């Protein structure tokens, strides 16, 4: 086993420190936008210098010091510009002239990271902007890294982030903790953004886009941070559990060419037992806390799947019961769709198909409805209908691996049918 490179160690440390330093700078300076830019510059400087010169004894203080100096520099050049344009520049920046020496320990407030998450996942932002800003300001990733992860040019990502910050500024949100009912609402927005980051990485963890799996790891890291700050919140615990229990199956989820392998055909020996054990423990903790929301329930469903040694050992009645609770809670047609699959596993494909009927109006045209219908018709022995729906699903999905999978299913059924006619 080789020791991790200095660059890797520095990278990990910087990403740990990023939200703490940004929190301290933003609290002191007040302007989140300027603070965020300054901390990003400090992180880039550290990534260059530390591997060469060694990690300073007080890395947090070093970053804080450099970030504040950057703000001072920017203010100074801004003042100089204004002085040139307008002789009435009297504002002093003496306040910024004092920065503590790097040896001085800066008070780290865990809540700062939480406030940052609330800001970056502000409801005024589109999901794409919130994701980008969260990864940079809380995750400590550089704009270039985020751009690579989302396969867009760096300039595009830089613009997306600066527009996100402008949106936050115009929303009038200060660097403070939302309280009361707003806090709960904003926390659920944070959880949603972390979940989207996880999906973005998990969904594409195959083939040439392997670097995107870093996004899942990053989402898990952020969820762990959030869980450490709010250990008693069942939804936060549930989200972390859901990520771990899903991520545990990653190695089995795709074949060598990136092709999709459905849950019931996966090689379960490839599942990560340590992640499953941790996820199960978390989900038990979340469920023991009484009133339970959507994330612990989804995590519980993932846990039931993960605990089955073989697909046929899956406790489908348990999954059906969990989806029924989830359906009453969320009124989400996708949940109803999943409940229909579970019902088909417990009561047979006909029962599942009957549950799909009312979903046409709510999910009309969504490929998942066709895919599930195809699957249930196939299980019911109706190859003709299955082929029609597999093909319809293949035409409608935006996912290329999924399209390939569905097309192949239809082709196999069609070939089997031709074979039967030839044999007759």
């Amino acid at each position, binding site marked *: 086993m080789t020791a991790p490179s200095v660059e890797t160690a520095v990278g990990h440390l910087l990403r740990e420190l990023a939200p703490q330093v940004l929190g301290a700078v933003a609290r002191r300076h007040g302007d989140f936008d300027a603070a965020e830019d300054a901390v990003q510059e400090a992180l880039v400087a550290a990534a260059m210098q530390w591997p060469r010169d060694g990690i300073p004894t007080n890395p947090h203080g070093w970053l804080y010091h450099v970030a504040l100096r950057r703000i001072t520099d920017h203010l100074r050049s801004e003042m100089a510009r204004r002085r040139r344009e307008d002789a009435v520049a009297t504002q002093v920046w003496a306040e910024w002239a004092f920065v503590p020496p790097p040896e001085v320990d800066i008070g780290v407030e865990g809540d700062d990271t939480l406030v940052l998450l609330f800001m970056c996942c502000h409801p005024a932002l589109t999901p794409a902007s919130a994701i980008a800003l969260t990864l940079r300001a809380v995750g400590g990733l550089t704009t270039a890294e985020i751009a690579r992860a*989302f396969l867009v040019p760096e300039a595009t990502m830089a613009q997306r*982030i600066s527009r996100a910050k402008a949106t936050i500024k115009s929303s009038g949100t200060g660097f403070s903790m939302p309280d009361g009912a707003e806090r709960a609402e904003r926390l659920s927005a944070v959880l949603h953004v972390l979940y989207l980051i996880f999906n973005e990485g998990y*969904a594409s963890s195959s083939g040439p886009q392997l670097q995107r799996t870093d996004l899942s790891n990053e989402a898990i890291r952020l969820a762990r941070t959030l869980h450490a700050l709010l250990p008693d919140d069942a939804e936060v615990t549930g989200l972390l559990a859901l990520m771990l229990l*899903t991520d545990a199956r990653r190695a089995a*989820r795709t074949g060598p060419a990136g092709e999709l392998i459905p*849950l019931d055909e996966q090689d379960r020996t490839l599942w990560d037992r340590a992640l499953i054990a941790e996820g199960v423990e978390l989900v038990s903790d979340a469920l023991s806390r009484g009133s339970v929301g959507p994330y612990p329930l989804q995590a519980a469903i993932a846990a039931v799947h993960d605990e089955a040694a073989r697909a046929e050992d899956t406790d489908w009645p348990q999954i059906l019961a969990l989806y029924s609770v989830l359906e009453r809670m969320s009124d989400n047609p996708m949940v109803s769709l*999943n409940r229909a699959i579970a019902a088909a596993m417990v009561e047979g494909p006909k029962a599942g198909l009957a549950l799909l009927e009312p979903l046409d109006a709510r999910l009309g045209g969504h490929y998942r409805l066709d895919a599930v219908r195809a699957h249930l018709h196939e299980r019911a022995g109706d190859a003709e209908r299955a082929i029609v729906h597999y093909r319809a699903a293949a035409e409608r999905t*935006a996912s*290329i691996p999924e399209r390939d999978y569905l097309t192949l299913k239809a082709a196999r059924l069609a070939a089997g049918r031709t074979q039967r006619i030839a044999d007759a």
Partner: protein
Amino acid sequence: MKYMLMMHAPRGNGEYQVSDWSPDDLKAHIGFMHQLNHDLTASGEWVDGQGLTAPGEARLVRAGSDGAPVTDGPFPEAKEFLAGFWIVEVDSPERAYEIAAKASAAPGPGGAPLNMPIEVRQVGSAPPVDA
């Protein structure tokens, strides 16, 4: 979600219809496209965009029985040709249509909008997380 916007330009008397335009009209057209590209970058939606060279050298290529390329073309009778494309990352298909409409209305002779047909297609993505 990413979309590819494919701009089909009308063919004129020569290779390019634009070769008959006045310099001012041409300048206005090029300026419009630069501004569009600039706006898409500023809005954080730009992924890629390229103009293609004149269709006079366009060839259709197929493999012959020995695998060697067999070419066909050029096709001077074609009324339209693919002049360029953008790939944008947007929050909704409607936004992709909006961008396409903007590009379609690029100014032509006398500043009148060209209303070129722009084919809009979603770029295939990764599979969603399994339920």
